[in-house]
Every structure is written in structure tokens, then in C-alpha cells.
């Protein structure tokens, strides 16, 4: 009979609050990078998702993601409205914490994932269609992938795929959806001609700091217990964040001649996103290497964007997509049971099979998330129209969608 532990429960509750804080943090991170006429609209896209997805999670999402398995593909709806999800622990999901605690912790992950996508279509999407897309996306992309990877009976989980805190479930799904969104919506008006200068980088750096702080809950909390694995994940998180930041700044300093604050924030987020799937399964040295690789690969991806010509406005693809992909593969390389006996041995520990499984999971999740997101975006576009009319885009989201302005001096 599973026994509730007070320490574990307190730890996961606090971790849930930390993960919650990441969504407002993301709002600031993104808000600072857009032009001042779009800052409220951008912040709102993250904030309102807290409501939309939390509701979805209670009534449908949690049951679809973690409820009783149907063919490895999805949870059934018997836990709708949290029926039967109570104080008793579920042995599959944190045997020492009440299932309600696991449910609310996972709720925060479901919230931030669609919020991440908003960076790709920043400054040009209508509010209503954005809500509709985000809700549908959570139901048909997030919930299934979450079930495949984390749900009891999920088919990728059964294949031995590991994802400690959401490299596949959170970062790769949102990154692939972001690519679809950038392609379907098209570029912002004035792309390549006007200057899209970030209007408030201190806001972005504050957001990055809040994200980093919250990430300790995101990764360490994914141990679902206040134990050694949580400690491993906490350390990995910090080491990858700091090495991602150092590498990005170093690269741009050499490549462009100046170390920038936006580069520091971007590198940190790249390192943190990349280590997410691996956090509880790798050694501190591996975490540093993962962070350095994240700095290199995400920097290159963000710089390559211009060559492809799509307008992923705030670099969700280059940072979260590439980070999730890279991190999941890195886990296949660096995982070792010496660090976490509950994990796996990766390629460098003599188990190339595990790397293959991770690579398979990356391809499947990336393709699924991209294709379904693309179809959803097209569907919503045909039904109600995704994009702001030209004159409203020029006016800015704040006035045209919300009848507000951020700065009234």
C-alpha cells in the first residue's frame, strides 16, 4: 500500500508553484522582445492560457494524459472532472504523494507548453482564434504525446523512451508547433524592411531569471520526491543553464564582436530547455556538456532562421524545438545508471540501443506535433481566420485586440 510522505508532498507542491511561475516569467521574457505596441497582447497570450489550459486539464486533459490507457495511445475519459483523482497516491505517478498533487504539478506543464508556442506567431495573431488553436492543440497534441511518453501504458514509454521533465512532451512539441505556426501565419508585416527591435530587454532578462528559478521546480520536481534524483536534476539544471549562457555569449562575442544581454538570456534558456529531458539521468559533467552543446546548436539554429526566411518571431523553434530535440538525443548519449538506477544506460555507457529509441521518439514526436499543429492552424484559419488585418497589425495587438496601451506617460 503506497504511503504518503509529508516531505515529498511538500516538495512537489512547491515545485508545482515554481513551474506555475514560469508562465508569467515567459510572458515577461516574450513581452520584452516585442515592440511596445504589442507587449500587453503578448503577455496576455501567456497569461490567459493559465485559465484555458487549467480548465481543459481538469475536465479532459489530465484524464487523456494519465488516465487508464487505451491501446498505448491515449488515456480514456474516466477521470474526467478529476473523478477518482483524490488524496490516495497512484503507484504509477508518485507513489508517495497524493494524486491531486501529481495532477496539479502536471497541470502547470500543460499550461506552459502552448504558451511557449506564442513566441512564434507574436505580433500578428488574433486573440480569439489564438485561444481556439491553443485549446485544440492542448487536446490533440499535448495530451496524446504526454500519454505516449509519461502515461502508464503509453507506447513510447513502453519502448523504453525516457524524458525526465519534458524535452519531448514540452519543448519538442511546442517547437514543432511553432514552426508550423510561423509557416502558416507568414511573416510579420515589414519583415526584412522594418526594425523589429525588442522594446524592453530588462523585462526579458527578468523573465529569463524567473524562468530559470521556476525550472528548478520543473526539473527537480519531476523526481516526484524529495530525494537524490531531485538533487541530481537540480544540479543538472543549473549547470546546463549556466554553460548554455556562457557558450552563447562567447560565440556571439567571437562571431559578431559583442556579447549581448539578449544572448545571455537566450543561451540560458537554451541550456535549460536542452537539459530538461536528461536532468535526472546524467552526471554533472554531462550536464555541462549538454549546456555547451545547447549554446552552440541553438545559436546556430537561431542564426540560420534568416536563411530559411520564416518568421519565428521570438525563436521558439531555434531554442525550444532544437533544445528539446538535442536534449532528448543527448540523453541517449549521456544517460547512465550510475547516476540514476531507475534510468537507462546511453550510448557512452555502452548501450547504443537506447540512443536509437530516443532518436525514434524524437522523429515521431516532431513529425506528429508538426503535422497536427499545421492541420489545426489551417483549420482554425479557414473557420475564423488567424491573422490580424493589416491595419490592426500596424496598430498593434494592445490597442486592436485589448483596447489598452502598456505605457501611458
Amino acid at each position, binding site marked *: 500500500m503506497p504511503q504518503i510522505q509529508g516531505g515529498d508532498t511538500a516538495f512537489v507542491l512547491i515545485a508545482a508553484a515554481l513551474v506555475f511561475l514560469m508562465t508569467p516569467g515567459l510572458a515577461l521574457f516574450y513581452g520584452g522582445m516585442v515592440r511596445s505596441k504589442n507587449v500587453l497582447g503578448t503577455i496576455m497570450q501567456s497569461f490567459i492560457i493559465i485559465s484555458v489550459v487549467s480548465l481543459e486539464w481538469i475536465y479532459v486533459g489530465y484524464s487523456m494524459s494519465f488516465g487508464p490507457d487505451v491501446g498505448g495511445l491515449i488515456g480514456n475519459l474516466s477521470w474526467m472532472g478529476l473523478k477518482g483523482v483524490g488524496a490516495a497516491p497512484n503507484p504509477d505517478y508518485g507513489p508517495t504523494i497524493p494524486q491531486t498533487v501529481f495532477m496539479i504539478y502536471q497541470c502547470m506543464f500543460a499550461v506552459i507548453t502552448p504558451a511557449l508556442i506564442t513566441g512564434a506567431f507574436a505580433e500578428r495573431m488574433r486573440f480569439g482564434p489564438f485561444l481556439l488553436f491553443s485549446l485544440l492543440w492542448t487536446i490533440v497534441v499535448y495530451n496524446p504525446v504526454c500519454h505516449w511518453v509519461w502515461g502508464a501504458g503509453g507506447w513510447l514509454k513502453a519502448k523504453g523512451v525516457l524524458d525526465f521533465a519534458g524535452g519531448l512532451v514540452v519543448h519538442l512539441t511546442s517547437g514543432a508547433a511553432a514552426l508550423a505556426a510561423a509557416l502558416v501565419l507568414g511573416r510579420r508585416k515589414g519583415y526584412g524592411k522594418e526594425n523589429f527591435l525588442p522594446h524592453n530587454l530588462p523585462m526579458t532578462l527578468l523573465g529569463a531569471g524567473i524562468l530559470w528559478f521556476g525550472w528548478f521546480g520543473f526539473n527537480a520536481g519531476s523526481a516526484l520526491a524529495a530525494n537524490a534524483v531531485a538533487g541530481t536534476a537540480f544540479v543538472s539544471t543549473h549547470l546546463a543553464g549556466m554553460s548554455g549562457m556562457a557558450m552563447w555569449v562567447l560565440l556571439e562575442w567571437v562571431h559578431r564582436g559583442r556579447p549581448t544581454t*539578449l544572448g545571455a538570456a537566450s543561451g540560458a534558456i537554451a541550456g535549460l530547455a536542452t537539459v530538461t529531458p536528461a536532468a535526472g539521468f546524467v552526471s554533472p559533467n554531462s550536464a555541462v556538456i549538454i549546456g555547451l552543446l545547447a549554446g552552440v546548436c541553438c545559436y546556430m539554429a537561431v542564426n540560420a532562421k534568416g536563411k530559411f526566411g520564416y518568421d519565428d518571431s521570438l525563436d521558439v523553434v531555434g531554442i525550444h524545438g532544437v533544445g528539446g530535440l538535442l536534449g532528448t538525443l543527448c540523453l541517449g548519449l549521456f544517460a547512465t545508471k550510475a547516476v540514476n538506477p531507475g534510468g537507462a544506460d546511453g550510448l557512452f555507457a555502452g548501450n547504443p540501443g537506447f540512443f536509437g529509441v530516443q532518436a525514434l521518439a524524437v522523429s515521431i514526436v516532431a513529425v506528429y506535433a508538426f503535422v497536427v499543429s499545421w492541420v489545426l492552424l489551417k483549420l482554425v484559419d479557414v473557420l475564423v481566420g488567424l491573422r490580424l488585418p493589416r491595419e490592426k497589425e500596424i496598430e498593434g495587438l494592445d490597442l486592436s485586440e485589448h483596447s489598452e496601451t502598456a505605457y501611458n506617460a
Partner: protein
Amino acid sequence: MKKIEAIIKPFKLDDVKDALNEIGIKGMTISEVKGYGRQKGHQEIYRGAEYVVDFIPKVKLEIIVDAGQAPQVVEKIRESAYTGKIGDGKIFVFPLEEVIRVRTGERGNEAI
């Protein structure tokens, strides 16, 4: 009466204000403006994307003086705003038809 407008480097504002105080100029209006002339703009880099920012921040001063004092004021602004580097700014002198003090209704030189 003359209206003197001067576009100067923002960090020179205090020097100019002090220099004009010394010759008895008791008021001015300033605004933060942006523009470019020979100095052109500069480049900014955000995540590797290079943007040329054409408009550089400047401060614009507006000073109303008696016509006889205008040459001295212009000279003082020139001296105190000078760095010798490109982008020091420009001074414009306009003839001014009328000045009215709102509170008292005084007009002309009385109102300066």
C-alpha cells in the same frame, strides 16, 4: 525677439544649461528627440539579426530671447555643446512674432 532651437548631444545638456545660466538665460524647454544628419545611425544586433538604427537620440532646446542677445546665446550653446566629433548638432534661429505670459497676460520682451 528670437526663438533659438538647438539640437545637441543628450549628455551635453547640463553643460549647455549651465553655460546659458551664466549669461542670464532664465528658462528653456527641452525635449528628447531622435534624428539623423551626417552622423547617420548605428547598428544593433539582436540574436544575430542586424538592424541599422537610423534615428539617434538627441535633445532639442527651445529658448526665447531678446533679438540683441541671440548671437551671444548661439555662441554659448556652440561652445558648451562642442565635442568636435560628428553629431554635435545644429542651432536654428527664428524670428519670433509674439510672446504672451499666460498668468499675467504680459506680452513681448516683458513676457520672456
